[in-house]
């Protein structure tokens, strides 16, 4: 019994599903951003598993993971700035009240 690719992929799938559950059901806007970070980490975990088990010599998966980390950092900065701007305008962070574009 040794470490296998399937363990990594199933763990990443579980993390992804938890992230989607939090993304849809949470009402605090900051918690939505945290769920997005969970999703990106699940994808990263997949990339690292593939990099280690399918391409152990030329580790291209790790390069992709570095790019994903970059994009995640940029996304967190811009997302938090947007949440701050919304909070100043509407004076709430309840996702259910951000319905300016509804109908």
């Amino acid at each position, binding site marked *: 019994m040794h470490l296998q690719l399937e363990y990594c992929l199933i763990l990443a799938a579980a993390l992804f599903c938890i992230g*989607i559950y939090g993304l849809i059901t*949470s009402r605090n806007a900051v918690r939505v951003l945290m769920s997005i970070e969970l999703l990106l980490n699940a994808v990263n975990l997949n990339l690292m*598993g593939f990099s280690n088990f399918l391409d152990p010599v030329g580790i291209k998966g790790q390069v992709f993971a570095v790019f994903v980390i970059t994009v995640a950092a940029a996304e*967190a900065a*811009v997302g938090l*700035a947007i949440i701050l701007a919304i909070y100043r305008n509407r004076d709430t962070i309840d996702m259910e009240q951000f319905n300016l574009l509804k109908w």
Partner: protein
Amino acid sequence: MNLAEGVQVVSFGVLAFLVLGTALGVVLLSNIVYSAFLLGGVFISISGIYILLNADFVAAAQILVYVGAVNVLILFAIMLVNKKEDFSELPRRWIRKVATALVCVGLFALLSTMVLITPWAIAPQPEIPLANTIVTIGKHLFSDFLLPFEIASVLLLMAMVGAIILARRDFIPELAVEEPIATALTLPERPRELIKSEK
């Protein structure tokens, strides 16, 4: 990685338990500050799994960028918007939660069956694992991934400028006192009198 295989499996199990437990805490706890700190726990456990998968550089980058930057940024955002507000109860909200949970469990079942029945093309592990992953990653970044690397730097610049512009407070200036605009559109010299030219 020079650990015995049993040690690898056991540490993977412990780390996976930590990842799933802290991720469930992030999603389910009601206090947002606890969620933010547990998010740091998720990131640290995931970097441990990266070390198990022979990726030391990415594990270090994960801790530096996620725990050091993103998590601190989220904590600052929580401090900036901390207002105790009790969200108003919505009717039939539990239906949404149950439906979402069902969809997520179904998605997980679908993904795990797909993972288990796919014949992965497992490459044979090299006898000696890669001694220095930083050198390999650097070679990739400056040869065949050069264009994405440069685009990523431009993306970071754009994100920084965009975040500053979005989060900046707009000062609305007081209305300036109306000053009479003096002779902006009049010619300085008069046109010549027509009557004099007739004479």
